[in-house]
């Protein structure tokens, strides 16, 4: 049987010797792991030995759209990129919008796997069956924007391009990949792995179609889904502000990361919110492939020495570069956003690390001599200066480029208390001392402290922010629903933003694939993938277990000093209770390791046997 929604092939490119090959997309892989994030997790689990150095040639990058990527249905432009993470040493991945994923499908591939490492800078060109590695010396050292623009000029507008900036080249452990002049695969340092492999860019163009199980049915359903999106009354209200629109609410509930997560409220937030963006710098809305609800905001800053166009800032950048570094003008945040995108630094980790450095300076743990100048919160020049130092690994940037966890280990002086991360991945834009479900979501997110696996903060507000009961169950429910979108190759924001019903996707799935999977079946696959990633971390990180799931001491020792969450903190006992509940519900042991029974129940016999072997 041909399963619809798949291009049918996986492309493998070896950068060491320049060879490439294709293989049939395995039906078993499809049936058990669907695509996108599922392919990434299982392929990396199977193909990477535990001692693989994230920056070595044995590490691989899997780039996988999902079965619904590139199809006629809302927001179907997502692609997943994964590797062993240089930020955490465990499984790392990031999801990206734009048009890149759809183009990979049209070129005929369900995944592209990058292996080996080149001796000289190169870029990969894929045009249907034509696969070519070319010399990228011309662009090595150049920013993401210039590289993308010049590659478009050289290859043609129809090519979709993803590239790294100088940060990736200089193996900054949280370097990102940029595409479409502002869409990023930002987290866990996938861009760093590209840089270590001397891969500057990938350019893809495809002219093929993707077979579907029921073409007419899928078209009819796709049209209905677009109409349903457009008719949602929240539709018109969401689009003007995009994710920046949530800035007010996050401040009002006291969860806005401010001054390196010192507090959860920034008094100048109205100067950096969605309205400020819209009134002062917005040029136009910008969306990904097939998106009816574009959250992208294309902006322009017109200030002396700081003129730029930039896609953003979206909420995470407003939070991490704005509130967290105390930048109180939307123009300043937009400019820092532009610089970090061009340098190829993830603005979440970048904002987090820079805020950490500013606090270290304030506390005298980094001296003026070490920093190379005076540094201060609220000072745009300090932020820009540190971003450049990090991207080029110069001076203090050499330490900061390894991430906040490693930097705290080097700097010492108790700085690990306010190095805000889990598992080595920098915390993103929600201060969670007064939001236990959100706190647990960060603690247990499979890649480290990232918000998008379970955005549980609404749940905290709805059912009581001091309550603990039921929080673990909610986090798990979300950890299965949300990453499922990454597996199918879709954007989840229409569901989050305007309440687009999940039933639509459940109805679409069999029309696309011909597989009679129910929504519950899909959620079970999502749980399976979650457990594969946990097992990957057990396999790759020495001593991995419960102790890797705790937040930094700031969150359980320092009460929030100001704002609506003033006086709140989450005790160590509460953290333990949350983890106990979570592990029990997941069928993991007290150390947070999946039990053999649980793995077998999920159809992961081979992983159960593998973990048993390792224990013995």
């Amino acid at each position, binding site marked *: 049987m041909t399963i619809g929604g798949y291009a049918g092939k996986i492309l493998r490119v070896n950068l060491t010797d320049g060879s490439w090959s294709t293989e049939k997309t395995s039906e078993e892989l499809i049936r058990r792991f669907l695509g996108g994030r599922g392919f990434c997790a299982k392929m990396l689990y199977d193909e990477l030995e535990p001692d693989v150095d994230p920056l070595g040639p044995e590490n691989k990058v899997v780039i996988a759209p999902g079965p619904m990527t590139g199809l006629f249905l809302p927001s179907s432009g997502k692609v997943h990129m994964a590797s062993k993470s240089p930020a955490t040493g465990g499984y790392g991945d990031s999801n990206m919008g734009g048009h890149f994923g759809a183009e990979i499908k049209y070129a005929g591939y369900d995944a592209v796997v990058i292996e080996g490492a080149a001796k000289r800078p190169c870029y990969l060109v894929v045009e249907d069956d034509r696969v070519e590695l070319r010399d990228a010396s011309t662009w090595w050292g150049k920013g993401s924007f210039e590289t993308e623009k010049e590659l478009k000029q050289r290859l043609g507008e129809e090519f979709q391009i993803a590239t790294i900036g100088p940060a990736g080249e200089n193996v900054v452990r949280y370097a990102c990949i940029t595409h479409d002049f502002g869409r990023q695969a930002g987290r866990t340092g996938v861009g760093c792995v590209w840089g270590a492999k001397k891969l500057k860019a990938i350019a893809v163009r495809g002219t093929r179609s993707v077979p579907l199980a029921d073409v007419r049915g899928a078209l009819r359903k796709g049209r209905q889904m677009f109409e349903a999106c457009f008719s*949602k*009354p*929240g539709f018109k*209200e*969401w689009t003007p502000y995009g*994710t920046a*629109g*949530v800035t*007010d*609410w*996050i401040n*009002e*509930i006291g969860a806005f990361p401010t001054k390196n997560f010192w507090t959860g409220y920034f008094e100048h937030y109205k100067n950096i919110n969605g309205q400020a963006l819209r009134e002062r710098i917005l040029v136009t809305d910008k969306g990904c492939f097939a998106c009816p609800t574009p959250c992208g905001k294309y902006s322009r800053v017109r200030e002396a020495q700081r003129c730029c166009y930039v896609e953003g800032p979206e*909420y*995470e950048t407003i939070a991490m570069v704005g509130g967290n570094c105390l930048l109180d003008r939307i123009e300043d945040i937009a400019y820092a956003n532009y610089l970090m995108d061009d340098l190829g630094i993830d603005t979440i980790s970048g904002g987090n690390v820079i805020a950490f450095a500013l606090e270290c300076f304030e506390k005298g743990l980094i001296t003026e001599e070490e920093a190379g100048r005076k540094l201060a919160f609220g000072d745009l020049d300090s932020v820009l200066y540190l971003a450049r130092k990090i991207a080029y690994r110069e001076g203090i940037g050499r330490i900061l480029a390894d991430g906040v966890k490693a930097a705290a280990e080097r700097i010492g002086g108790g700085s690990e208390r306010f190095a805000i991360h889990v598992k080595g991945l920098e915390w993103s*834009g929600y201060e969670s001392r007064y939001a236990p479900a959100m706190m647990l979501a960060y603690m247990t997110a499979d890649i480290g402290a*990232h*918000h*998008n696996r379970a*955005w549980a*903060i*609404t749940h905290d*507000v*709805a*059912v009581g922010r001091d309550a603990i009961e039921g929080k673990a169950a909610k986090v798990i429910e979300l950890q299965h629903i949300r990453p499922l979108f990454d597996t199918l190759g879709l954007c989840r*924001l229409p*569901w*989050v*933003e*305007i*309440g687009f019903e999940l039933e639509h996707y459940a109805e679409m799935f069999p029309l696309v694939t011909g597989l009679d999977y129910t929504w519950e079946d899909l959620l079970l696959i999502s749980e399976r993938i979650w457990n594969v990633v946990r097992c990957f971390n057990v396999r790759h990180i020495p001593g991995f277990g419960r102790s890797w799931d705790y937040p930094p001491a700031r969150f359980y020792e320092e009460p929030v000093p100001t704002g609506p969450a003033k006086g709140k903190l989450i005790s160590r006992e509460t953290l333990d209770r949350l983890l106990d509940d979570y592990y029990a519900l997941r069928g993991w042991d007290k150390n947070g390791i999946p039990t053999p029974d649980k793995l077998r129940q999920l159809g992961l016999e081979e992983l159960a046997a593998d973990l048993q072997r390792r224990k013995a």
Partner: protein
Amino acid sequence: MQVTLRFHGHAIEYVPGGQETLTVDVPAGQTLRQILTTIGIQPQLFAAVVVGGHRRDLEYVPEPGDEVMLLSPAAGG
């Protein structure tokens, strides 16, 4: 007087019965915050209020027959 509340986004699951629309009888002069609290919905759950195409907040006092749109906070990647 009657006021129609229309909820949008993922926070609908916390509206009693998961309903998108609720028409409620309320005494005149109550703020939206008071109305929501009375019917058992945490007012802070909604990030924006729109009435007749205009942005309002939770201190807005609805007029008879108003249709009030309540939007879930949206971000979360």
